[in-house]
């Protein structure tokens, strides 16, 4: 703390901003196995004494480091909190001493909170249902807002319709793109087509959730044909009518912002 106070005195940064940065760092960066108290290192690299340039810290904090455990904090923390934590890490990075002992952290200080869902309440409920991890949910086949697994058709068409028509469409067979695959060993299943090569064909097996991407040799496959018998409603039945209405509200909000 002495070192931080000294550095603080030498800089033009608002003390309250650094204090906020320390709070944000404690909850998001030193937490668990990551950068450690005072930036002392953990699973994440040491930050203390590294003399990392502030523009680098700013970029990495915003964008993260692709293909690593360092997430992009843009959108997860407020812009003000990101600025505060970058200031704080910049100071840690300039520190030359060992991390100071931990100080008490009053419970009333207030944790940093992420941006919460800011749509209307019915869309919020629909969002939670669409991605409800405690059951087989829409997101295991459909992607929305950069989340979920994008193997099934996107839902733009659905959201251009009225609420009632959208629900009817979701309840209908929706089987235009679903095929029935028959294998030489007698197995048969409904699937969505994936990529193909000269020797292999990839298919998303829709028998159960989550769908399975199967790679089959062409010699294993007897036939692949349209499957008008497949029913999307078999999966939709897990949701009540009220829940479906909320889900459509979410889709419409996510797609067109209303």
């Amino acid at each position: 703390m002495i070192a931080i106070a000294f550095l603080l005195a030498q800089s033009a940064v608002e003390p309250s901003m650094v204090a906020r940065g320390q709070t944000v760092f404690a909850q998001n960066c030193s937490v668990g196995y990551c950068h450690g108290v005072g930036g002392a290192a953990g699973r994440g690299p040491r930050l203390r004494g590294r003399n990392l340039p502030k523009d680098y810290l700013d970029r990495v904090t915003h964008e993260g480091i692709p293909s690593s455990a360092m997430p992009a904090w843009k959108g997860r923390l407020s812009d003000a909190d990101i600025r505060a934590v970058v200031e704080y890490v910049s100071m840690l990075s300039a520190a030359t001493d060992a991390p100071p002992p931990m100080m008490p952290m009053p419970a009333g200080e207030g944790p940093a909170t992420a941006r919460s869902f800011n749509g209307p309440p019915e869309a919020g409920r629909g969002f939670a249902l669409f991605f409800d991890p405690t059951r087989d949910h829409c997101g295991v086949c459909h992607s929305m807002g950069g989340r979920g697994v994008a193997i099934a058709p996107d839902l733009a068409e659905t959201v251009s319709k009225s609420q009632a028509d959208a629900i009817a469409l979701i309840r209908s067979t929706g089987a235009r793109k679903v095929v029935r695959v028959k294998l030489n060993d007698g197995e048969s299943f409904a699937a969505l087509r994936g990529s193909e090569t000269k020797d292999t064909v990839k298919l998303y097996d829709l028998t159960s959730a989550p769908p399975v991407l199967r790679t089959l040799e062409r010699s294993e496959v007897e036939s692949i044909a349209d499957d008008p018998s497949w029913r999307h409603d078999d999966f939709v039945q897990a949701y009540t009518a009220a829940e479906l209405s909320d889900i459509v509200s979410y889709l419409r909000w996510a797609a067109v912002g209303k």
Partner: protein
Amino acid sequence: MRRWFLRFGFRGLSAIAILACGTFARAEDGATGDDWPSYGGRDSAWRYSALQQINRSNVRHLKTQWVFQTGKIDGGLNATPVVVGGVMYLSSSWNRVFAIDAVTGNEIWHYFYPNPREIGIGYSPWNRGVAVSGGRVFFGTLDNSVVALDQKTGRELWRVNVEDMRQCGCNITGAPLVVKDKVIVGVTGGDSAHRGYLTAFDVKTGRKAWRFWTIPGPGDKGFETWEGNSWKQGGGSTWMTGSYDPELNLVYWGVGNPAADFYGGDRKGANLYTDSLIALDPDTGKLKWYYQEIPHDVWDFDAAFECILFDATVKGVKRKLLLNVNKGGYTFVVDRVTGEFVSAYPVAENITWIKGVDAKGNLVGRNEPPVGQPTLMCPSIGGGHQWNHSSYSPQTGMLYTTGIEWCQQVTVRPEEPREGFNYFSGVFQLKPPMHGEPGGHLDAYDPVTGKKFWSYRAKYPLLASQLSTAGDLVFTGDPEGNFLAFDARHGEKLWSFQTGSGHRGSPISYAVNGKQYIATPSGWGSSLAGLLPQLWPETEDFPLGSSLFVFALPEEK
């Protein structure tokens, strides 16, 4: 050199075990032979090889046969290789799987799963192993998929995304366990706002066969052990690999800590089935019994490590037992038929989170960290014991396992759960132990009573698994890169070999054409490796690596 008999007959070995130590254990339950067919050796997780060509008298002659480089050192090499029919199957960081000629070290095929670039990694880049069965090789990926490969060619057969990792903050680093026609896979996420589970998939099609939620939902028994909505983000990950008893037809798995790790005020109650051993019917995923080691954990002390299945005589009665070393530094032994508590004993000396465990298995003298105030707690979050696996030898009747002496200051800080984020509710700083020097030790115990037969002290925590063999040897490695062999009965260090990078993986033994091999991963890395500099600054510069070393005795001239 005369060609040694590779193995005793199983009956002979069993008889020797009975005579030698009074415990009985049928070697066919858990000893490996030429193959090392599954993650824990066999599905009882002994990590014991019945091969004895390499033994106490000749181990000093071991020579390197070949070295295999995985090419990605990020995260080190944390895996256990599997060997079937002279082919080794090895996984490494960043979703890499290799099939290697176990005699020459030449690659037969490799499979690199390209992690979607836009998806980071929730927990870590490493992978601890594969399962091989029925012509297929199974493993889990960093983006939370399960993949089946053709055992001969490495061609992908099926792949299923278990849960969107951007949402769950979880992935798969543990090796799957194949039981009959199902491949059972755990998940990380115990330190995230996530509800844990264990999932079984059909080996042929990849279709989900069942899921066991480690946190009961509304209407399920045990749901009442959670407060409010805490069950939805209560952790309970299944990040290691379970065991299987074919006679009882039960699969056993250890469940990790509840989330938030350090603050339990939002999840009042026992928090089932976190920090529990669970026994499931592998055909249905239905719970047969559970044993909770730590009700309402506020220290991040998982019960997630391996379940060693062995039989022994307890107070004159033959018992089928399950042994699990808890991260908090206590070993728990339970009856694996019923889940009844049998015994518990410490494997670390510096333990302050409890005063002890009573004769019925209840924790005594809980020491819960207060909110806001830095508090010294031992062991550290790194554990009095880490995930690196223990070994059980039916020949010596001993358990070989490791303990770590270190403490931490922890400051609890309640926070809101955020989907896909860490959910620790606190920070910690490693501190030296209250008694003695910080460091690690390898110890040999009576597995039931905890009586210690010998101990080897090390400067740094020992973070590699143990392998014991019928040659009366115990192998493990240290963070400085030394691969070590000990006399299994007396603990004398008999041999060491510097592999150039620290050990965080699991050694194995196998044989091809009558020749016994010892294989060990070498490659420093992992969360723990990252934490060590807080107590031992010099370890920050320890070289990373990711290679597999294989040793054997010199050929007869």
